[in-house]
Structures are given as structure tokens and as C-alpha cells.
């Protein structure tokens, strides 16, 4: 009897978790910036989530829970430790202030060939800025979900998001001026 209930539980985990597979992989790849590490990270996330699924409270946010496991796993990985040890949150620069007038980064974005520039700018952002932009603009999470995923208060979500966007604009502006 226990075995059949265990199977039932695994099935519902699979139903909830597999639809997130592509987006979790995308997020993992942005964090690790490496294909093999991203695969390991996703695999470990699913293993941990399956193991902890019995303690997961139905009715709470499953997506935020999965992302949180993935991110915490990343933070304790070799790459994660290196990235977070070398860049502390306090020392993250916001990027240069924008010059008033002239072309803005947004006018540049109208050109679809500029996607590569945006990608590079996101890639260059400190990991704490990169992840919050992805969660907000790519995953379209609410501030509440982001707060749960990153284990930070909503006020911090807002201020970090604003700094992340400023940092990204600053980087795009620099590319615009250089190109």
C-alpha cells in the first residue's frame, strides 16, 4: 500500500515539475553560464525537489519553491561560491549615470539584431542583478514570487530590480557609445 501511494506522489510531482523543465534549464544556464553545469544543476534540483516534495505544502507556490531550490543549489556549488564570494552585494555598481539627450538604449533595442547586445549586457551583470531581471521579465514572476524565490523582502525586490535595470541600461548605453 505504501508503495502505491509513493508512486502516486511521484506522479503528481512529475506533473507539476516537468512543465517547468525548459524554463528552469534556461535560468540555470544563465546562472552557471555553462551547459554541463546547467544540466547538473537542473538534475540536482529535481532530485532535491522530489525528495522534499512530501514536505512541500500544497497550495503554496510550487514554481517559486522549485526556483528557490535551484538557486540555493547554485549558490552552494563551486561556481556559485566563486561568484558570490568575489562580488558582494554591497560592492555591486549600478552602472554609469546616463547622459541626457541623444540616442537611448531603448531606441537601439528596436533593431532586432541588437538582441546579442542585450544578451551580452545581461551576461555581464552581477549574478544578483541577472537573476532578478530574468525572474521578473522572462519568467514574469510577481514581486511576491520573486521575494519567495530569493528569500528577500518585497522592498528589497523593488530596490534590487531598479538597480538591475539601471545597471543594464548603463551597459547598453556604453555599447551604444562604443559602437
Amino acid at each position, binding site marked *: 500500500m505504501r508503495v502505491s501511494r509513493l508512486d502516486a506522489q511521484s506522479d503528481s510531482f*512529475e506533473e507539476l515539475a516537468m512543465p517547468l523543465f525548459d524554463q528552469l534549464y534556461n535560468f540555470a544556464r544563465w546562472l552557471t553560464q555553462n551547459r554541463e553545469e546547467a544540466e547538473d544543476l537542473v538534475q540536482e534540483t529535481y532530485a532535491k525537489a522530489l525528495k522534499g516534495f512530501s514536505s512541500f505544502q500544497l497550495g503554496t507556490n510550487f514554481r517559486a519553491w522549485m526556483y528557490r531550490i535551484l538557486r540555493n543549489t547554485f549558490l552552494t556549488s563551486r561556481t556559485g561560491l566563486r561568484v558570490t564570494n568575489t562580488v558582494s552585494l554591497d560592492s555591486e555598481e549600478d552602472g554609469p549615470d546616463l547622459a541626457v539627450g541623444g540616442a537611448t538604449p531603448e531606441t537601439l533595442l528596436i533593431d532586432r539584431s541588437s538582441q546579442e547586445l542585450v544578451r551580452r549586457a545581461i551576461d555581464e551583470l552581477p549574478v544578483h542583478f541577472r537573476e532578478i531581471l530574468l525572474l521578473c*521579465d522572462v519568467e514574469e514572476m*510577481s*514581486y511576491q514570487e520573486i521575494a519567495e524565490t530569493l528569500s528577500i523582502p518585497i522592498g528589497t525586490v523593488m530596490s534590487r530590480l531598479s538597480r538591475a535595470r539601471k545597471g543594464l541600461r548603463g551597459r547598453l548605453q556604453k555599447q551604444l557609445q562604443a559602437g
Partner: protein
Amino acid sequence: MVCEPWKEKLDLYLDGELLDELRVFDAHVRNCPSCAADVLAGVQMKRAIQIAGKRFAPSAEFRQRMQLHMQAKPRRSSIGFSWMTVTAVVAILAVVGLTFTYVGRERARTQQVYSEVADLHVATLASSSPVDVVSSDRHTVKPWFQGRIPFTFDLPELQNSEFSLLGGRMTYLDQTPGAHLIYELRKHRISVFIFPEESWRGRLDENSSVTKELSFSVETWSRGGLRYFAIGDAGGADIDRLAKLFKAANP
């Protein structure tokens, strides 16, 4: 036109988080070229990030591998060593989990903490290089942590005990840095985790005697502002002996 309060709320507006003032904001934007330009720029930027951010797709091979993992029933799995280890633990944990008949709020919270600690223990042992500092010498391991974690502690003298130190590594629980030490006892691996007590914010009651509810034996205690966990698949009495050695070293 007073724009300042609206400029500050631009992100909220763009992210769909401006609920109460949405109509008022809309009305302002329709009549204010400056804010309208900001909204347009913001929308373009969000869109650009969204397109650029959807960048990576898993390979067909990886997708297939994951699907196999998901379908593999515990015990029948014959895939990869580390996955096997985890799967076996999963099976035990899930069965143990189902035998709970009463989970009070307090107890659920403690369980959650234990399960996070068990996660760290399992994940470390499953990884190809579990320790960052490989040494059986406590005089090597202790200084390694200095500057890496914001507290200090002493490692017990192990002469005349059956335990041996394998090494240590840094760890994180909810972004709080901590120390992770790995000991060996016969064929068992035992983890000792140490975190600042304040990071637990009352998630745990005082000290617990050894509990055996997670397929692991766990013991936790608090000393000198630090929270200790000893966890492993060894017997409860073994975990308790290691805990006593730590308590003696950190009175």
C-alpha cells in the same frame, strides 16, 4: 505637472504591481509626454530582456535523460551513481513521510529545517568532490574557515575516538554562510553543520535529543550563539557521541 511620485512608481506600473493607483497613473501618462516616453522606453526594455532572456533550450539528449529519471521508480532505477544514492534516500524519506499521522505546526517547522539540513548532507555526499579542504587534521581545517565564515569554533580532538575527520567545506542555508564538516565512522558519513544562531530566528526550539525521523539521525544544539547540527545514517548513539565531542570542544 507633478511627475516625481510617478517616476518612482514606473517599475511597479510596468511590472503590473501598481494595483490601487493604476487608473490614476494611466490618466497621468495620457496627459504627460515625459512619463509617456518613460513608459514606452520601459516597455521596450522589458520586451528586449524577455526576448534576449529566452535564450537556452535543453538538448534533446538531456530532456530524454531527465524523463528517464522521472519515470524511474525508486529501487528499480539503474541510472548514475549519484542519482541512485539520492533516489534511494528519496524512497526512504517518502515512505517515512507517509507514516506521519500528526504533523503539528511546530513540528512541521522543525521538520522543514531538518529536511533542509538533510538536503545539504545528501547533496554534498552525492557530489564528486564533497569537501573543499581535505584534511584529517583539525589544525588545518579550522584556519581554512577563517575569513570564509563570520564566526569561529573549535574542532574536537579525535584521538582515542572512532571518528575520523575527512574535511570541510563552506555551505549556505538561505544565503547564510556556515561551516560543514564531514566525519567518517566505520562506513558511515556524518555531517556537522554550524550556522550563526540568529539566522534561525526561532525556527527551532532549544536543543533536541537525537531524532530518527528522516531516515537519518539528527541532533541539534545551540552553544555560544552558534547552531550545530549533526546528521548521518549512523545510529543515534554514534551521532550523540560526536555531538558530545563537539560540545566538549566548544563549552
